[in-house]
């Protein structure tokens, strides 16, 4: 029983990353009708925003310490971060420790800006082109983005730890009288993504801007004829979608050390999530994200693997095939979207 609850929890936690990425992908597809293969790259850039903030905060000056030797036998240069010398080791250390949450503030404007530039500079010219062309150009962009990151940060993963106060484990089963321990940061990640998803939905649901965007998603032409500048709003939505991907990336860094190809690792998976949820359906994307997360967690249990060897390798694809064959428009999709 404990084991099953633990896997459900784990699935929700995994699923929250899938849901956030798929949500952004669906926002772009639903509004602009563009298949964005560079979305994984946006997630990756978000993660590297966190890395950058951490590096900036730990920028150090060097002092030669004669008592210690470096690997060549020369006197060791001891590095002290500037923030520690400005605010004292106590506060300075805390600031560096909280680099990842601080990076959120930094990542939002950056990601929105990247989104704007991408949409205005490139994607805009591809609205009328075939999906195959969109895939090719965004795939090219994804390669370029990831190679640029690799050029500056290398190919190896870079550790970006969570704040000390939010690492470690918590016994989440205590309320139910059970012993289920789970990493604190992963729980934070889950609630963070629920909050972001909630914010996006209420923004679309309860603001005038959101209403217009939803109307535009349903019928772009009519909204345009009403004299509303729908294009500008769609550009903003692209920026928001990029920011969602970026935030998912920032918060993901303590869970797994980011590397330049992490976007590609998520790309195929996020498309499967979107399709399972139903192309263009925001609630569908979220639901499918969590659902696939949970299924994936269960598939990796030894009890299940012993019955179906290798099931954890293919579970995502098996689910995708079953859903597409039995319910072609996905869990919550509208009929006829992307059928040709």
């Amino acid at each position, binding site marked *: 029983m404990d084991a099953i609850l633990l896997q459900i929890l784990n699935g929700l936690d995994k699923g929250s990353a899938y849901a956030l990425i798929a949500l952004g992908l669906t926002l772009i597809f639903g509004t602009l009708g563009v298949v964005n293969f560079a979305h994984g790259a946006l997630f990756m850039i978000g993660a590297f925003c966190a890395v950058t903030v951490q590096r900036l905060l730990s920028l150090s000056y060097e002092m030669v310490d004669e008592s210690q030797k470096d690997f060549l036998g020369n006197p060791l240069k001891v590095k002290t971060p500037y923030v520690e010398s400005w605010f004292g080791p106590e506060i300075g250390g805390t600031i560096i420790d909280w680099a990842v949450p601080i990076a959120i503030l930094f990542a939002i404007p950056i990601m929105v800006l990247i989104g704007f530039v991408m949409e205005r500079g490139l994607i805009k010219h591809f609205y009328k082109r075939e999906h195959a062309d969109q895939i090719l*150009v965004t795939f090219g962009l*994804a*390669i*370029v983005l990831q190679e640029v990151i690799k050029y500056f940060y290398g190919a190896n993963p870079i550790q970006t730890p969570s704040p000390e106060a939010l690492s470690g484990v918590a016994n989440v089963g205590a309320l139910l009288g059970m012993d289920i321990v789970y990493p604190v940061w992963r729980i934070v990640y889950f609630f963070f993504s629920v909050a972001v998803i909630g914010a996006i939905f209420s923004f679309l649901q309860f603001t005038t801007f959101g209403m217009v965007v939803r109307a535009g998603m349903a019928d772009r032409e009519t909204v345009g004829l009403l004299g509303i500048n729908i294009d500008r709003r769609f550009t903003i939505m692209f920026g928001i979608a990029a920011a969602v991907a970026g935030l998912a990336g920032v918060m993901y860094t303590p869970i797994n050390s980011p590397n330049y190809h992490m976007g590609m690792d998520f790309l195929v998976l996020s498309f*499967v999530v979107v*399709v399972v949820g139903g192309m263009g359906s925001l609630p569908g994307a979220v639901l499918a994200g969590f659902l696939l997360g949970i299924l994936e967690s269960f598939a990796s249990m030894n009890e299940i693997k012993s019955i179906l060897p290798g099931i954890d390798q293919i579970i995502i694809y098996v689910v995708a*095939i079953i859903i597409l064959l039995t319910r072609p428009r996905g869990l919550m999709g509208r009929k006829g979207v992307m059928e*040709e």
Partner: protein
Amino acid sequence: MFGLDNKDTRMLIIVAVLTLFAPFILNPFPTGSAMAQFNAGYPDLMQRFVIFGIFAIGFNILFGLTGYLSFGHAAFLGVGSYSAVWMFKLLSMNVVPAILLSVAISGLFALLIGFVSLRRSGIYFSILTLAFAQMSFNLAYSVLTPITNGETGLQLTLDDPRILGVSATADGSIPVTSLFGLEMRSTFEMVVGPWAFQFNVGYYLCALVLLAAFYLSIRIFRSPFGMMLRAVKSNQQRMNYTGLNTKPYTLAAFVISGMYAGLAGGLMASMDPLAGAERMQWTASGEVVLMTILGGAGTLIGPVLGAGFIKYFENIFSKINDTVLHNWFAFMPDGLEDFVVFIVHPFIGKGWHLTLGIMFMLVVVFLPGGLVEGGQRIGKWVKGRKNKDDSTSATKTPAE
């Protein structure tokens, strides 16, 4: 000729000349010169050009004609390679049965996957094929290791039970692949002054197969069957309303293109008897999509050009390193030399992916019809200039 009209015959002849004289065409620079780095006329790369050309031609029969975008075509190539290597292990080192088996098995595999996947269209079809291919890759890498030899890839060993042939040659090596005794790897080298041209038996086998495959693809494009497939692309619904069941046609196209992929896989294994699971990964499927679109989807020659383009980048650009750069720019003053190397450095060697990504974007943005369109534009431009010179006919430029 061969039941083709003039234009197609001309194209077939051009392709034939290009492939048969590839050892010359691809080796324009003298061996030992600084530019020799750009020579591509060595057997392995020439074989790859041609094999991936076949793969892309096959993919284009599906995608170019019907518009169905398969994201799992590499699976058929992988299955083809595995079947061929198994044939070498179990039956004989002759490439003919191996290639036949790989075409047959991948055809069957394509029939199975196509039958299921073609129940959907659009992006749903793409995701279905992607899912099947990724499943094949993941299983081949791990659970199916007894059949595929997993990570390492299926290789020949000294104790293969080869029914027609020997397990090991007299001097204790693994026998090599051959066509009725003609070894695939044997190469004849011709030295002309500073140039060295290599003629490889395996390459010419591949080239002949490519010509046959290309000819077949022209016939398919020009046949009533091809017309039917194009009709599916332009409006499948209307086809269905006329009471016509399009599925047999699309399925046939899917299987044919799967067999092309299997043929490519079988040839690949015949040139180099190893079958690795990475051949089936989604990135490999993505690669053939890129080749086709880059060259010009729906055109006859485009996919072959695209395949050549990508393989050239992969094999030539990745091998340029800083030492080579310094050699090239050695004539410049020191400071300038370092600066130029510094500028070029991110795009070569380990940065070849970056260059490739930029090329994709440039081609898609500026040449929506792929490289073929680029060629046509240049052709038009040249024609236009000629016409300008001849002022009387300037206004009569024929519309294309």
